[in-house]
């Protein structure tokens, strides 16, 4: 009896292990491929010149493979998008979980889920056809496809991520903390600011960073509305060419295993490390707050 049960346990364990191992191996293979195709570019340029080089002219003769303008483009749109999306996402989460009456809560939650469900190409289309002409006219710009436009659309994309993860974190704050606060004569507002948000901070930080990671890796939107200029921007209304846009736009025309091809894969490697850094940061922050014994996800 006991022996068969044990064997069954082992079989189940094995099965789960296989599934887990399969996905890890698959990911590892993708990574190996990324590095195999990207690293050869460093025979032509040094990593420093590649990352900090100011000129991205991969099709010139001789070509220049400096992706600094692309990195700046990615970072600029990500940070401006975050500056817009973080307050919006976090505050809407606070409103939904702590303040809104039940009926409004349901409506808001569905609206946010709806936004989360919009394909990014549709958002990009919105940026192109509505936001861009409006910006161009209102601010009298040469083009409406620029940093501001891309940041706004990316912010719209990041809000649902930030809001829904923050909301979960806020819900996870034990009711006892709230009752303790009210019993000491705190108002609702004081309770939210001084007890609920601090207790959910680890989850909220995770939400923020995952939202940013989402924005930095997003391709379609920046391809459509960032304007595509591979130059270091000087104003918020300049066009940029974030890394994912560059890869998506150029991969089709880069000859197989040419310098340009390897350079695009190497750009992918940089993007990979950036996103990884965001995820590690999210992990670190959520663990750090957890040790204090506060409520977390």
């Amino acid at each position, binding site marked *: 009896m006991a022996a068969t049960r044990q064997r069954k346990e082992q079989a189940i364990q094995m099965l789960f292990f296989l599934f887990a191992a399969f996905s890890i191996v698959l990911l590892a293979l993708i990574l190996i491929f990324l590095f195999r195709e990207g690293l050869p570019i460093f025979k032509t340029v040094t990593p420093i010149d590649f990352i900090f080089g100011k000129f991205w002219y991969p099709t010139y003769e001789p070509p220049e493979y400096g992706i600094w303008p692309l990195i700046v483009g990615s970072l600029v749109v990500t940070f401006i998008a975050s500056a817009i999306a973080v307050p919006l996402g976090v505050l809407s989460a606070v409103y939904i979980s702590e303040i809104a009456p039940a009926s409004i809560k349901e409506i808001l939650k569905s609206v946010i889920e709806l936004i989360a469900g919009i394909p990014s190409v549709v958002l990009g289309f919105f940026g192109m056809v509505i936001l861009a002409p409006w910006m161009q006219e209102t601010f009298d710009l040469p083009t409406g496809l620029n940093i501001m436009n891309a940041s706004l659309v990316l912010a719209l994309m990041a809000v649902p991520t930030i809001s829904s993860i923050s909301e979960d974190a806020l819900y996870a704050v*034990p009711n*006892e*903390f*709230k*009752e*303790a*606060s*009210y*019993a*000491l*004569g*705190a*108002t609702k507002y*004081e309770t939210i600011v*001084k*007890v609920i948000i*601090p*207790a959910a901070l680890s989850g909220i930080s995770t939400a923020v960073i995952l939202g940013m990671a989402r924005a930095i890796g997003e391709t379609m939107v920046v391809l459509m509305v960032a304007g595509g200029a591979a130059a270091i921007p000087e104003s918020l209304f300049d066009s940029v060419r974030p890394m994912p846009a560059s890869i998506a736009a150029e991969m089709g025309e880069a000859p197989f295993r040419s310098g340009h091809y390897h350079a695009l894969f190497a750009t992918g490697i940089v993007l990979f490390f950036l996103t990884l850094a965001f995820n590690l940061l999210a992990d670190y922050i959520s663990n750090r707050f957890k040790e*204090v*014994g*506060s*409520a977390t996800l």
Partner: protein
Amino acid sequence: MVTTANNIIFELKQVNFFYGSTQALTDISMDFEKNRVTALIGPSGCGKSTLLRLLNRMNDLIDGTRVEGEILFEGRNIYNADNDPVEIRRRIGMVFQKPNPFPKSIFNNITYGPRLTGTRNRADLELLVEQSLKQAVLWDEVKDILNKSAMTLSGGQQQRLCIARALAMKPDVLLMDEPTSALDPISTAKIEDLIEELKKNYTIIIVTHNMQQAARVSEMTGFFYLGRLIEYALTTDIFTNPQVKQTEDYITGRFG
């Protein structure tokens, strides 16, 4: 029991209480005296916590609740529309059944309430922390770790911290909902000693399932059953000479 009116701090007149459509308290009329310990006893679900939470309007936080009758605190109905529940809760402190310190440092736990009311001066706050912790017999154990998270304390220490936190508001009344139910005998004894000490300056209303505890710490005891106040009298009378059969059955453990 003869009391003069100015000795009474809480006066309940025909109070009914509803959670949605279920009635949790029926026709409760009772007085609580100033600077005394009153114990509320009764089987689980009889409405003791509900009554306690009515006294500082904590039930307001639950959707769909309704109060009927009058609850007078120092002669004023606390459920009058012009009475701010926040103001009431500052004067009527509460200690919960489960220790619920904030995930903040010990120091910040104690100063949470006073800061809300505008005490900002560091020296004042430090003094208040020391006083409150000494009152709650916790000072010696934590005086060197005031900046550590309150979550690292033991359950009994956490509960005394919660008492200290309530005391830091200098309330007139302290409501305690089974404050020792999660604690070991030593912590329990410490908290009972503390109640003994506190009743000189505070009015204490305590819910307890522990008959010995009610007998030890309180002067008045109310026995509740199914949302009704069955018997309310001097603790010595309740425990030596109960007038109602249900009370007798309950305190002698023959209930059922």
